[in-house]
């Protein structure tokens, strides 16, 4: 990737960071807070996703 393309890609991603920052502030101020057991219900499926990715890597190696 030449320097011009790198700068364009970085600027586009910088725009996304700004967009995510605004969304983050909004969710932090107005979003609901986690209750007991909420994070446990998320960690299990995400751990299964991580396990699946490891399995897929093993398949292509």
């Amino acid at each position: 990737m030449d320097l011009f393309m790198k700068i364009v890609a970085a600027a586009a991603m910088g725009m996304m960071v700004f967009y995510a920052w605004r969304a983050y502030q909004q969710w932090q101020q107005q979003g609901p807070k986690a209750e007991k057991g909420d994070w446990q219900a998320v960690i299990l499926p995400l751990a299964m996703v991580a396990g699946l990715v490891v399995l897929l890597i093993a398949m292509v190696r």
Partner: protein
Amino acid sequence: MANPQYSVLSGAQSAISANKVLKNTYMLLSATLGFSALMAVISMSLALPSWMYLVSVIGAMVMGMFVLPRTANSSAGIGVLFAITGLLGLGLGSILTMYMALPRGPEIIATAFAGTGLIFLGLSGYALTSKRDFSFMGGFLFAGIMVVFIAAIANIFLAMPALSLAVSGGIILLMSGFILFDTSRIINGGETNYIMATYGLYLNIFNIFISLLQILGIMSSDD
């Protein structure tokens, strides 16, 4: 005093409304994914250059940020959504052309495709059957997106394969979280616009597929 009959009816109506949004979202999602795949095939047959990916992502990003929110409440929103997903399909095709040239390219693409499908179906099924409200994850997910994008910006200039792997892995986990978050918002009435709901789920699938392609591409090489 609250009228219990009214609250039962109101609860039933909101459930019917959420089911309608969910049904419309999945129908539009399958149509946009099909259209995107068609555009990817066209892009591959035209052998579009790899910079087309960057152009299409930036174009889709600008339309998604500034045009789609203004048109999402009208029928024009569907056209804009197809334009965005078609553009992303064109860009995806140029990336797939590069992967097809690798020694085990078709196998990597098929594995990434199957993995993306499994992740989406599994997490959607989990969110739909558990009926939990995952909207508490909003702040965490957007903070994660910021961290991953800052790392990705750094890696544009550093070009470190290990950082690239970490960014792709982070994106897969974050987008998996977004599938739970977006699906639960549709079920619980947090998202009532099926065009915006489709756009969110489409981006989750697209990002998981691209990141899986990158991880499998790096890990399958012998160097």
